[in-house]
């Protein structure tokens, strides 16, 4: 175990709220985002012809007229690119070849000297379709009556922990069989059975997706883009195009928000593919906001069935869950969301008997991607409401019920392994106290009802067992440090936290540390992806390891030069010091040219460059029939949220008055940025609870704009959010740290739903809890007339 302690009397930036490294660039307009990059007059503009139907067979495509339009440099279709794409299950082509599976599925691409010519060329492409019956409900989609969306499912390549069911629309089926659910029900004093439906929503980062690709005469590909996953894109797009990974270079400048939307491979492959047909010239594809709404990853819809029961003392005895994930037309991440929700399906509770069936189902909706929380907000939305109902049914306070059942150190998890040390109980206590649990304030007006609600959460980084990180640390003539890393700063502050860790592990001031940006797969060290809230922990470990490697080289050099024992040497504030001889040497004097030998005849050392890596090596597989195994995941971040709100009886409008949130982050490397994640996640979660839904009718999107797809604005936020950091260290985290980025929006929907119930005694099948829905619910319940 790495305890990270260098010397307690040394001021280190660990636990200090340092200002973001990129703040100055970002407030002056100097920060370069992908759309800001300049490619000169040779730049070509790409536009994409997309399917107008949710499900259809392509009968014919005629591109002859489009090709003849002056200014058009390339027109491509699926025929040009036979390769497959997919992170876990290779189920799609870059352009559709025989069939379209959602409205917006790419059918053809054009590169032209300007955008208007490219648009005009799209109008000249003639496509004949034979319209097929779409699948728009995941539960129906699993049945024998549903038309097959991927008849070739049995031929697709797939990762060994994903279990598609050929001959059906099920792209992954994950099971938990723990204990004996069937015989547990009769021991239950209370049982709750509910169905919840969580709609599709979207990430809507304010920066739209953009990709620029250039292919050299030799076939080497360079791709610039809005990317959370430059290395995964290198790997997957190279395979789809049939080039080697070493001939594929991905450059990822700052990105204007990701939330999962810019992870894996989406529209980038289109630009890269088109560029192969116009060698030498950069090709740029910038999605319009409308195109974003139609074609960027969506958060999958979910139909969830819960049954849970407890004994008369409130001990949870059994849970039986069925999750039908609306995976969409193809499944970049959806199959693993299905798996993650399966191995986390008990919620953050110890339950002796659990039966879960989690299905990822192909539908004719857009591609389900990863979105902040990776299935957990959707799953917890229903689960945490059932927990409240169960507590009410046996006459127990929901906080007390949760305190009894929630995970503690060594609790047995749903997959059979033991829980690591966790501060979940503390999180529950702190949020309940902050919201004034057990007391009821008067509504602000006679036509309002006030309520409080609480919810817990847990979430593990969902990733392959061996997702790796690497880093390097090098020093310059001024003694300052540059950290090479391959993870992306989406705004969460990964670069800042990385610099803090390097400074602490090496022994230099934080202000001396720089990060080598932009991420460039040619020069940056490997990082699996910026997803799963894994960077602070995984990339952090790699950075610490690289900084310690550099430190070791420096101390070895000076021990030899000073003819001293290395153990007596240290690096403090950029200075090598000896506790024995009290000698001092500034780093700047030694890290490039080394030092003279003690006899002055010859030299020791030379340019210092430290290298480090981290890869968890302890995650085991799970039994495909029972979902049981030794260690399903690397760790779980846990937490709680509570809200106080008012419901307007005249309008149904919900006003969130107060929020409270607490998460066990292991160790906060930068407490202020941890709080910023907790606050930002609360508001994004609140937005998903109150406003957001992609409305599909028979597979057709009805609200593709910010006017019709409303997200939280500055006027919607609560009067205050009280945030708490709980720190129960992670054994293999840097200084004990684990992730926080995604977790902060996981419990928000159920906390709000439970508060609405507390206020008006009504529950809804799913979010968003719009004024209209709430008002109609009150009408139906007879609360208003």
């Amino acid at each position: 175990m790495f305890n990270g302690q260098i010397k307690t009397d040394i001021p280190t930036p660990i636990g200090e709220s340092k200002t973001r490294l990129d703040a100055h660039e970002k407030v002056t307009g100097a920060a370069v985002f992908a759309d800001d990059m300049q490619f000169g007059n040779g730049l070509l503009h790409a536009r994409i012809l997309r399917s107008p139907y949710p499900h259809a067979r392509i009968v014919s495509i005629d591109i002859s007229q489009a090709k003849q339009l002056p200014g058009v440099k390339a027109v491509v279709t699926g025929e040009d690119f036979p390769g497959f794409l997919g992170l876990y299950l290779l189920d799609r082509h870059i352009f559709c070849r025989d069939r379209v599976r959602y409205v917006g599925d790419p059918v053809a691409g054009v590169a032209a000297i300007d955008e208007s010519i490219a648009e005009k060329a799209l109008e000249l492409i003639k496509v004949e379709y034979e319209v097929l019956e779409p699948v728009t409900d995941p539960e129906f989609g699993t049945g024998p009556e549903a038309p097959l969306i991927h008849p070739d499912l049995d031929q697709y390549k797939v990762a060994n922990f994903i279990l598609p069911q050929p001959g059906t629309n099920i792209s992954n089926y994950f099971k938990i069989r723990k204990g004996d659910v069937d015989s547990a029900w009769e021991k239950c004093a209370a049982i709750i059975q509910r169905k919840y439906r969580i709609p599709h929503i979207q990430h809507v980062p304010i920066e739209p997706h953009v990709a620029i690709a250039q292919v050299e005469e030799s076939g080497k590909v360079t791709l610039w883009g809005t990317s959370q996953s430059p290395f995964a894109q290198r790997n997957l797009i190279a395979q789809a195009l049939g080039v080697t990974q070493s001939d594929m270079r991905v450059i990822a400048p700052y990105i204007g928000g990701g939330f999962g939307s810019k992870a894996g491979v989406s529209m980038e492959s289109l630009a890269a593919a088109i560029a192969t047909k116009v060698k030498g010239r950069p090709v740029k594809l910038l999605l319009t906001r409308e195109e974003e709404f139609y074609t960027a990853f969506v958060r999958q819809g979910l139909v969830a069935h819960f049954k849970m029961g407890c004994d008369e003392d409130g001990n949870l005895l059994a849970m039986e869950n069925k999750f039908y994930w609306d995976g969409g037309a193809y499944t970049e991440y959806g199959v693993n969301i299905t798996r993650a929700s399966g191995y986390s399906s008990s919620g953050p509770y110890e339950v002796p008997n659990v039966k879960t069936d989690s299905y990822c189902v192909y539908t004719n909706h857009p591609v389900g991607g990863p979105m902040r929380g990776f299935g957990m907000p959707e799953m917890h939305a229903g689960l945490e409401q059932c927990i409240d109902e169960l507590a009410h049914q046996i006459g127990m306070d929901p906080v007390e019920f949760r305190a009894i059942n929630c995970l503690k150190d060594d609790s047995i998890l749903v997959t059979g392994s033991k829980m690591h040390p966790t501060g979940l109980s503390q999180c529950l206590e702190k949020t309940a106290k902050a919201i004034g649990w057990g007391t009821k304030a008067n509504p602000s007006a006679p036509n309002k009802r006030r309520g409080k609600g609480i919810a817990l959460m847990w979430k593990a980084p969902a990733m392959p067992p061996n997702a790796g990180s690497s880093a390097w640390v090098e020093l310059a003539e001024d003694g300052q440090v540059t950290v090479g890393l391959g993870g992306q700063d989406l705004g969460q502050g990964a670069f800042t936290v990385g610099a803090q860790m390097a400074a602490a592990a090496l022994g230099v001031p934080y202000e001396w540390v720089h990060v080598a940006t932009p991420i460039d797969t040619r020069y940056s060290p490997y990082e699996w992806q910026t997803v799963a809230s894994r960077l602070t922990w995984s990339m952090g470990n790699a950075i610490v390891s690289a900084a310690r490697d550099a430190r070791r080289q420096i101390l070895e050099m000076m021990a030899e030069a000073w003819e001293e024992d290395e153990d007596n040497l240290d690096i403090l504030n950029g200075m090598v010091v000896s506790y024995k001889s009290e000698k001092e040497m500034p780093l700047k004097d030694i890290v490039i040219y080394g030092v003279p030998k003690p006899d002055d005849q010859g030299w020791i050392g030379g340019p210092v460059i430290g290298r480090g890596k981290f890869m968890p090596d302890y995650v085991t597989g799970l039994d495909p029939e029972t979902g049981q195994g030794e260690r399903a995941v690397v760790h779980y971040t846990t937490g709680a949220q509570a809200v106080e709100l008012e419901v307007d009886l005249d309008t149904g409008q919900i006003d969130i008055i107060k929020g409270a949130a607490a998460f066990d982050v292991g160790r906060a490397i930068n407490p202020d940025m941890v709080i910023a994640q907790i606050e930002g996640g609360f508001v994004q979660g609140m937005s998903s609870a109150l406003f957001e839904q992609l409305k599909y009718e028979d597979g057709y999107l009805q609200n593709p704009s910010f006017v019709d797809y409303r997200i939280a604005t500055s006027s919607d936020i609560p009067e205050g959010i009280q945030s708490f950091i709980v720190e129960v260290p992670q054994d293999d985290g840097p200084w004990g740290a684990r992730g926080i980025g995604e977790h902060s929006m996981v419990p928000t929907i159920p906390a709000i739903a439970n508060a609405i119930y507390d206020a008006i005694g009504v529950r809804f099948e799913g979010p968003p809890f719009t004024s209209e829905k709430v008002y109609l619910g009150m009408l139906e319940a007879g609360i208003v007339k």
Partner: protein
Amino acid sequence: MKLHRIELTVNGELDRVDVPAQMTLLDMLREKLMLTGTKNGCAAGECGACTVLMNGEPVNSCLVLAVECDGSEIVTVEGLAHDGQLDPIQRAIVEAGGVQCGFCTPGILITSRALLDRNPEPTDSEIQEALVGNLCRCTGYQRIIDGVLEAAELEKELAHV
């Protein structure tokens, strides 16, 4: 394509630009003047990322035609700092932690600058109202609001010096 010659002041400097009639102020700034600090988030006047000052008023530059700007005075995010000194609103937003991904930040800074210019002591709710057209998906807004309040304080102090 017919081009129209316009003259305008951008960030205090007089510029002369030839633009097609349908070119937006946003595209002119980004593509003709290489001022890429102003961002394109929706090109439909819905997100506020492209906000600039036009004759002192905040506008969505994606909804203004470049030719309309003939003779006007434009300030973009690049024009907020002077002589290497950040504007108080820039300093305060950084200190309040109101920057995450940074994509909405230029628009937020410009809208806030315009608010402080017409109302040097805005209340919480006046700030919320002013920023309602500037979408931010990262911060949850409170730190941005805190930043504007701090900037107002800073400017009051500076005025007294």
